[in-house]
């Protein structure tokens, strides 16, 4: 049903008391029988209609809602919720046979009030739960351009509950004012996606892409259990690479939710592990236990068992990891360098920030990413002169480096 390929950056760990790093790249692909069509969709579109959405932003989101209506088939279920200080259910969960009255209600949306996201998410989740979750791909799609105030914790708890109900979450941030870290945290429990939409014109493209992915989900709710990792192994960082790049939540309890295998896949993710081998041990086994739902086979919580067997030796032979793994770790490093520059700016350490931005610029140039390198250079100049990054530039760097994962592997190492 699913094929798992688990590859590590090396097959031998040094017999040493010192902490060592190991990178593991996992690729999950559907077996050959997988077709293109998945389960019917059960979507809730949750739209921010706060004052700042007035104009092109809200107009484009309305067009996105219309696109959604066109995309859905007769078995799909749709609901639409608009929120500002409170939430209004514009369209209760239903099969939409007559689009005209729905479109008219969407066109009637006006921008007004603040951004209280919890109301919108909670109403959207209630609507999704009206349909039978096991027969659908269940998903909330959030569009927002602002920061929610005072209800972040409630939103994050709700996202966790949604994941427990097997409801995925995609968060689209429009413009530059929204809280990107919050949106990353919000989508993490379900293995969902957050994306930066700089120009409202991009909304339709992003939505179309997401709908194509959701509509072709072959396996969903794929989780990796890290509880079985031996004590010598600690998960330090996780990043989903395909079908879209998204950091994985490694600090939370429970399994790592990886999302879905969409279409012919694959789903690919990268882990960074720290290892401190026990003395006297000659081998280290790291089990990789995945569970997944595969609706077309009426399979839920199916367990897939793989593992890595590493030698522990005083002499570690030098091996060259696969190009795919090297590319992934290289991009991971670039994203971290970008984050480290931001952290240095926040801490007021401008000398460190400029050094890091200079290094990032040079690495991006080496990687053939001229546009991103220019952006890093611009931010470097801004930090030198003004002591701060621009919000747009910071997001462009963050999501730009992140997007390198999803592209074909074409960096120059």
């Amino acid at each position, binding site marked *: 049903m699913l094929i798992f390929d688990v590859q590590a*950056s090396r097959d031998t760990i040094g017999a040493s008391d*010192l902490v060592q*790093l190991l*990178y593991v790249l996992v690729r999950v692909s559907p077996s050959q029988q997988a077709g293109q069509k998945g389960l019917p969709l059960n979507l809730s579109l949750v739209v921010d209609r706060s004052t700042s959405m007035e104009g092109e932003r809200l107009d484009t989101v309305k067009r996105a809602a219309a696109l959604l209506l066109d995309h859905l088939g007769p078995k799909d279920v749709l609901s639409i919720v608009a929120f500002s200080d409170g939430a209004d259910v514009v369209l209760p969960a239903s099969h939409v046979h007559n689009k005209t009255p729905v479109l008219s209600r969407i066109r009637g949306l006006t921008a007004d009030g603040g951004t209280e996201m919890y109301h919108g998410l909670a109403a959207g989740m209630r609507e999704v739960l009206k349909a039978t979750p096991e027969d659908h791909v269940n998903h909330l799609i959030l569009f927002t351009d602002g920061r929610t105030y005072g209800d972040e914790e409630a939103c994050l708890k709700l996202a966790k509950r949604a994941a427990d109900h097997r409801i995925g979450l995609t968060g689209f941030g429009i413009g530059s004012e929204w809280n990107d870290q919050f949106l990353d945290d919000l989508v993490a429990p379900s293995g969902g996606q957050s994306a930066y939409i700089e120009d409202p014109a991009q909304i339709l493209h992003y939505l179309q892409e997401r709908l194509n992915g959701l509509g072709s989900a072959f396996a969903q709710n794929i989780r990796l259990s890290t509880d079985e990792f031996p004590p010598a192994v600690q998960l330090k960082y996780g990043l989903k690479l395909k079908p879209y790049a998204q950091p994985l939540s490694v600090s939370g309890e429970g399994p790592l939710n990886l999302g879905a295998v969409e279409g012919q896949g694959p789903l690919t993710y990268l882990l960074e592990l720290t*290892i401190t081998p026990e003395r006297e041990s000659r081998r280290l086994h790291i089990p990789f236990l995945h569970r997944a739902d595969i609706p077309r086979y009426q399979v839920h919580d199916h367990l897939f068992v793989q593992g890595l067997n590493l030698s522990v030796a005083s002499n*570690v032979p030098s091996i060259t990891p696969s190009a795919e793994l090297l590319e992934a770790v290289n991009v991971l*490093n670039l994203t971290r360098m970008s984050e480290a520059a931001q952290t240095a700016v926040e801490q007021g350490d401008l000398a460190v920030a400029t050094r890091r931005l200079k*290094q990032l610029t040079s*690495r991006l140039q080496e990687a053939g990413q001229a546009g991103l390198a220019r952006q890093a250079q611009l931010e470097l100049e801004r930090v030198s002169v003004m002591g701060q990054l621009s919000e747009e530039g910071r997001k462009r760097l963050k999501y730009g480096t992140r997007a390198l994962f999803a592209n074909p592997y074409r960096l120059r190492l």
Partner: protein
Amino acid sequence: MIKCQECGSSQYDGALFCNECGGNLWGRRQRQTSILPFAAESVTAVPPSLSPEGAGETARPSSITFVIPSSGRRVVLKDVRQIDIGRMDERKDIEPGLDLTQDEGARHGVSRRHALIRFTARGAILMDLNSTNGTVLNRYRLMPERPYLLRTGDEIQFGRLLAHVFIE
């Protein structure tokens, strides 16, 4: 821990890229100067060494000439107080005064920052900069980072690359 060859920061064993400067660590061995076995002729009489304090202020000779027999190249440097010897690497901002790249320095085991020659009040000194394959002066393998007196007509091996030195 391993050391990034580009920025010198300490990194975990097994790291593939430096988290400070983004430098490539997995290809470290390939990108480093390859390690050559000891040459049989490398132990003979000990040339005089200077304590670092003994080097004193720099002084300037009129010229120093290097003759590299394997490539037949002759390099004359004038009015210099110090000469860095190694292989050019623009990306790392390494521009040695005596660049041995075209003498097939890499193949002969010359490091990017291999050695330096400084002109002091007590004469010219040669110092190996902890290079991968070491520096041999008149068939004596130098201790790294210690200054040794250099005289005209001396024979220096940077890794396996032989050069004759003439100071005026």
